């Protein structure tokens, strides 16, 4: 058994695992049908590429990568950076929405509004 076999095996196991988790999320109605299909498509591509990595050779060869694995590492890095950027923006958007909501709630439903008994007699 060479190293490539174990990497392929790990890829397939990971893909199958993620397929299962995606399915569970869909059944719990945490994912819409389109989201479910997009993610399942991603895992299917991952499993397919793990089983037959040579199908990527026409893309990898012109880019002069020494090994297929190098190509996966570089692409994986780009995907991770894009996800980081996407998550960062989503988080900022949600933070802003929460802030607007909480401040609005505080201003509209102020719970106590009193003045001190000697307020009218206040002298600067």
């Amino acid at each position, binding site marked *: 058994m060479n190293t490539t076999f174990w990497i392929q095996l790990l890829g397939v196991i990971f893909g199958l695992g993620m397929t299962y988790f995606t399915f569970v999320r869909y059944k719990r109605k945490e994912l819409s049908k389109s989201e479910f299909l997009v993610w399942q498509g991603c895992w299917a591509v991952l499993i397919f590429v793990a089983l037959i990595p040579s199908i990527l050779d026409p893309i990898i060869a012109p880019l002069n990568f020494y090994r297929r694995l190098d190509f996966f590492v570089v692409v994986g890095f780009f995907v991770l950076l894009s996800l980081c950027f996407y998550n960062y923006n989503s988080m900022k958007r949600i*933070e802003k929405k*929460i*802030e607007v909501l*909480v*401040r609005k*709630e*505080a*201003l509209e439903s*102020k*719970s*106590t*509004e*009193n*003045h*001190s*008994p000697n*307020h009218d007699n*206040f002298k*600067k």
Partner: protein
Amino acid sequence: MADFGVIPVHNEEKNISRVIIETKKYIPNIIIVDDGSTDNTFETASQLGVTVLKHSVNLGKGAALKTGCDQALKKGAKRIVVLDGDGQHEPKEIPRFLEALKENEMVFSHRKENKAMPLVLKFGNNFINNVSGRLFKIKIKDSQCGYRAFTAEAYQKIRWSASDYYIETEMIARAGKAGLKYTQIPIETIYADKYKGTTVIDGIKIVLKMLTEKMLR
């Protein structure tokens, strides 16, 4: 002239009573903004005859101050004094702020040399003061001291977007940009809890935000 004191608080059930009672001696209208406290801060403040607003979740000092100042403006404030709710700022200084506001649109304060000030805070403050002075062309002796006062007109010009500790710096940047007439007064500061307030991480974030703001505007 309608003067308002705005005090943001977060988990300050032990200090808030003293701060409110002391502040009441110097300013007629007080707005407390409880920024998602999990202790009895809200209940304690509510019993002391002041306006208390509550954020259902903790948003940060900047957001709490904005809520308080917006409410003050809604109630017809002409001058606003902002101070911390942890007892670090002495309410007895308020008349000096109001006096200085007669000739200025905004009053900043700077903490007097104090041996109790943690060394890391001293170094961090000096560094942030220098960077903000160079970037925004406004020389503030203590850029991180939150005890400040401004007129209602000035507030509309400096109304910040930061929800965290960057608020102090953003205020300075906006005041510099708007060309507000300002002055600085020295104040006494009490350091009660060294684990509260701005941390080193906050300091790094503040410097990074300053640089980003300078580059983008």
